[in-house]
Structures are given as structure tokens and as C-alpha cells.
């Protein structure tokens, strides 16, 4: 199987859809039409490919982790999305959406951000293309990711705090949607994960499929085949879908790793919020629960609908790790490989470190979705 086109209703099995206020329905429909046409247009694809190579630095390398492998007894390969321009995989999606927005005649981007990586990437693309950019960020996250707030401002974006609810990523999404409801004429909502209403989960996946396509080729060359396991952290799930898309038709086991305090697949039940039907942490009356994770980027009570589908058909499975396990993994990779990971992909390292005995002798490909510079100040407090 390959990951499917969800069709006009935007369904991945029973998940997905387009649960948005009526005001936004025509905009979502227009976005779907525009994306379909752009994605089939060699000129658009060529321009995006050129930006991905000349501006973002693709292809990202595949790194064999010899010392970590020796320590864990598991052969570990990293797909180095941390080496992209702006420091994470987020740039793949943002360059695609900004090009598309320009093609649609939009002059302004709004975005939500958790850890700030998607916000920084959006601000970067807006600067590159001469567009206005406003980024909504939870007040709590603005504190713990002050460096990224400054980066966004330096790039010319306006950063607006989300002050309602849990004041984290969930609330930033609410604010971005409210902004878009009011500004839909000239504004594109540059959504940062494989979530939200159709066509976002599909479109964002397609923009990140380059991760899996490259990694598949790199593994063929390096291993002469495919890895036994492909793993990535999952908040909304964009970096995971990106790398899974290259291996879904192989025998590789696909493992998403969620924070224990934000485990939509692991602890949620189906629900509808932020435009999509998917697993969601909620109470018996459908009130969305607040997630709690050390990682601002994964501090989200929902998950992209295609992950709910992959979980329900058994093609991928989802593990949970605790903040303490993540902190240990953050140090482990830094110490053994000289790579300081972002707290988000440190979740994937934490899982394979914890389950190393079950994985003994196997080859595991980890999507290293971002670098840890943004987390250093927070970790100084934690480890200090």
C-alpha cells in the first residue's frame, strides 16, 4: 500500500473531514483545488524542488550512529532533518504552502506554533517571499521558547500570544483559525502539521513525503534494503507521516512515539476538533483535555487523522514515553553522537533506548526532526 489520496471528502478511513465554520468552507475547497492543480504542475514542483535544495539544503543526510548503536545494542540510523535550514523538518511544508499561497494570490500568512519551529519556518518563508506573517503562540510556550520568539520577530513576523485555555499549541491553533475566519480574503492559514481540515492533513503530508522518499533511497544504498523499524515522534504527526510515507509499502515496522502527557492515539478516543475527526484526549462530554509535555512541540491533545487511520488498521503503532525518559535521551544522543536533538525527536530516541532489549540486533531508522538549540535554555534549568 501507499498512503492514499483522501479524495474530496478528505477521509482516511473514518478519520479526517472538513469540520470548519461555514465561513471557511469555500476557502478550504479553493485550497484543495489549488493544491491539486499545483501538485500536478511541473513548474510548481520544479520551483519547490529548487527551493528545497538551494535554500533549505536538501537532501538531508542519513547518519549511522556507531557509538549509540554500540551502547544500545540496536543499529540506529538518523534521517537528519535537524540539518535543514531553520533547524527542523518544518521548512519542507512551509516552503510548499508559501509558494502555493503566492500562486493563489494571498499576501499574508497566519500560523500557529508550539515549540516555535513551525513559526520560525513560516516567518522565514514569508521573509523569503515578501509576505506578511503573524504567528500565534501559547503564552506558556512563548516563555519556554523565548529564543524562537525572538527569531520570528527578527524575521519580520508578528508573534501574538494565545492567552486562553492551556495557553499552549491547542490554543494557538484556535487563535489562528479565528484570525483566518476574519481575514480569509487575503490570508493563507499556513498550518504546521498533518492536522486540521481537509486538505491540510493530505497536503502537509505530500510536502513532507520528500523525507521518506530520500530516506528510502538512502537506506537502499546504505543498507541494501529497508530498516526493520522506522520511528518518529508524534504530536500532530507531520515528521512521522513524512518518513512513514517512504516505507509504508515495505515490511518495516512503523512506530510513532507520543509524549505520555499528550498521547492522543494512546489515551484518546475519536473526537472532532480543529477541523478534523481523529483521536483526541477529551472528557466524557467531549471537552478537550489539556496536554502536558516537556516538549512544546508535542504538547497537543489531538493527532493528525491519518495516524488515527494507520493505528486503527494496525499499519503503525504508537508508543508513549515520559518526560524523564526524554531528558535522558536528550543527553544520551548528545553524549554519544555529538548531536543535540530537539526535545521532540528525543522522544523517538527515548523509546528505542527504553525498548532496546526488544529491539536488540535490529536496524532502526529515526527521523531526527529537529535540532536542540532551541531547547538548551530550558534544559539548563531542568538539568542545572
Amino acid at each position, binding site marked *: 500500500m501507499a498512503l492514499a489520496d483522501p479524495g474530496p471528502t478528505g477521509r482516511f478511513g473514518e478519520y479526517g473531514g472538513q*469540520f470548519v*465554520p*461555514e465561513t471557511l468552507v469555500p476557502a478550504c475547497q479553493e485550497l484543495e483545488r489549488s493544491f491539486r492543480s499545483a501538485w500536478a504542475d511541473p513548474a510548481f514542483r520544479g520551483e519547490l524542488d529548487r527551493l528545497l535544495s538551494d535554500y533549505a539544503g536538501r537532501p538531508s543526510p542519513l547518519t549511522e550512529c556507531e557509538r549509540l548503536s554500540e551502547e544500545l545494542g540496536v543499529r540506529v540510523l538518523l534521517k537528519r532533518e535537524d540539518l535543514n535550514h531553520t533547524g527542523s523538518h518544518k521548512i519542507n511544508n512551509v516552503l510548499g504552502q508559501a509558494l502555493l499561497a503566492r500562486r493563489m494570490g494571498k499576501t499574508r500568512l497566519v500560523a500557529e506554533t508550539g515549540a516555535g519551529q513551525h513559526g520560525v519556518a513560516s516567518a522565514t518563508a514569508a521573509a523569503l517571499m515578501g509576505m506578511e506573517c503573524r504567528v500565534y503562540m501559547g503564552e506558556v510556550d512563548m516563555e519556554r521558547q523565548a529564543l524562537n520568539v525572538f527569531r520570528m520577530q527578527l524575521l519580520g513576523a508578528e508573534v501574538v500570544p494565545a492567552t486562553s485555555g492551556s495557553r499552549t499549541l491547542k490554543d494557538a491553533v*484556535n487563535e489562528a483559525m479565528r484570525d483566518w475566519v476574519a481575514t480569509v480574503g487575503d490570508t493563507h492559514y499556513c498550518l504546521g502539521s498533518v492536522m486540521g481540515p481537509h486538505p491540510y492533513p493530505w497536503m502537509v503530508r505530500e510536502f513532507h513525503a520528500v523525507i521518506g522518499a530520500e530516506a528510502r533511497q538512502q537506506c537502499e544504498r546504505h543498507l541494501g534494503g529497508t530498516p526493520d523499524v522506522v520511528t518518529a515522534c508524534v504530536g500532530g504527526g507531520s515528521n512521522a507521516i513524512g518518513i512513514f510515507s517512504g516505507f509504508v509499502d515495505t515490511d518495516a515496522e512503523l512506530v510513532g512515539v507520543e509524549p505520555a502527557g499528550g498521547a492522543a492515539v494512546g489515551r484518546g478516543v475519536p473526537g*472532532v476538533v480543529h477541523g478534523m475527526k481523529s483521536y483526541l484526549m477529551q472528557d466524557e462530554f467531549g471537552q478537550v483535555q489539556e496536554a502536558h509535555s516537556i516538549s512544546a512541540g508535542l504538547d497537543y491533545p489531538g493527532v493528525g487523522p491519518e495516524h488515527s487511520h494507520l493505528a486503527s488498521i494496525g499499519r503503525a503503532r504508537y508508543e508513549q514515553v515520559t518526560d524523564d525518559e526524554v531528558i535522558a535521551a536528550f543527553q544520551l544522543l548528545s553524549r554519544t553522537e555529538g548531536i543535540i536533538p530537539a526535545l521532540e525527536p528525543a522522544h523517538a530516541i527515548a523509546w528505542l533506548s527504553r525498548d532496546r532489549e526488544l529491539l536488540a540486533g535490529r536496524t532502526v531508522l529515526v527521523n531526527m526532526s529537529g535540532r536542540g538549540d532551541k531547547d538548551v535554555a530550558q534544559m539548563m534549568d531542568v538539568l542545572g
Partner: protein
Amino acid sequence: MSDIPVAPAEPGALERTLRAGRDEGRKLLVPYLTGGLTVGGDHWLDVLSAVVDAGADAVEIGIPFSDPVMDGPIIQEASERALAQGATPLSILDEVRRADVGVPLAVMTYYNVAFRMGHERFASSLADAGVSAAILPDLPYEEVGPWAAAADAAGVETVLLAAPTAPDDRLPVVCARARGFVYAVGLLGVTGERTALAASSLEIASRLKAVTDKPVLVGVGISDAAQAAEVCAVADGVVVGSALVRRVLAGEGPAGAAAFIGGIRSALDA
């Protein structure tokens, strides 16, 4: 989209009441109140009675949701406070069931509340509580099928929203499926007060009146009596939410709510 049932031809209680009012030459006034919200000892049902006595034709009761993406700061705050006071869909509907309101009621909430409880169970809970209609602003026409089937079966009218962004060919489709009334979204934006009536309010009302004979009520941004009267030059009526809820949050209680709604009633009747 083949799974979207055709709306029953027979109007429900809300639509009958609104049509009757319109037939008498009356402009329709539907205040919105956040259910389960007690401020300064004033129970929300007392505020509800007060706005009915002040001339409401029907009342919208908000069942608070944790993530109200169509709502601005006032209704967000009211929702958060009601939830913090322990309001749940069942507690609100239980209070409604025991109240004697005298006008039709619609609940306004977000789709996950209905989805989580189950369509049939939520629809029958509304009917059991004497609620005529439901408004789910994040459930657009294309996604309404499974809920509408359950609501139709339970005799609950599903109000649909129509927005200024809709192309002309979309409006008749939405109107045909709407029951109770057609909720015309007055502007591009979320609920909240505005200093002047948006030109888009008159435009959307006029576009809708040209394609439907169902009552057309404009909501979102209707902030005072003058704006209500201005839009009712075209529309059949108005929904007034944030402007009323702000007064409730400020502790103005049933008397303040009645004075505000009474003022709009007088302007509409003038």
C-alpha cells in the same frame, strides 16, 4: 454528499414560531446566553426568563465547549467560566427541562459535544429537555449528514449557517437543508461586538432573502438596538450574543439583560 438527508418538509416548533412572528409583521429577536453560567448569584435561568419577558421570540442557549473557534473573547470567557463552575451538557439540559420558558429554545454548541455523546443520544436529550433546535457552527453542510439524520428523527431542527464567503450556488443548498431558521453570518470574523454594522450583514441577508422563504436571522457582530434595526430593514431578525453576555459577565443580572433586550425589542417594533 449523498448521505445528507433531505430536510423534512414540515417545519418544527422553532420555525413555526418564527414564521408566525414574521407573518404578523414582527422582526424576530433571538438572544444568546451561555448555559450554566452563574454570575454574582444570578442564576442563568433567571436571566433567560428576563430576556423572554423582555420580548425574545426564541432563545439560543450556549452549551460551553473548551475550544470555541467561532467565538470571540466574550463568549470564550463565558464558556470558560461556565465550565469552571461545573456546567456540562447534561446539567444544562436538566435545568432547561425543569424550566418553563414559554418560547422555543435552540442550543448552540460545537460538534464534538454531540459527537462524543452520540448523535442519537444527544438529539434525544435535546428533545427530552424541550429544546427545539441545534446550532453547531463547526459542522458545515458537507459534514452534517449523520447528525442531521439523528436530529430529524428526534424532531430536532438543525439550523445551518450561511456566510458572506459562500458563492451564489451554495446558498440555496444550505438553505434547503436548514431548519428553524437560516443563520446569516453577518461578517468575516468570530462572535463579538463591533462599533458599526458591517455592510456584509445587509448583503448576506439580502442574498439569502432572494433564495429562501425560511426566516433569515443575522448574527455575529450585532451589538446594539440601532444595528439590529438597521439590519432588519432586510433580514427577518437578529441573533444577539456577545453584547448580552458581556452585560451578564459584568454582573448586570436579569434586570440589566432585560433592559438591553427590551431596548432592542422596542427598536425593532418602532
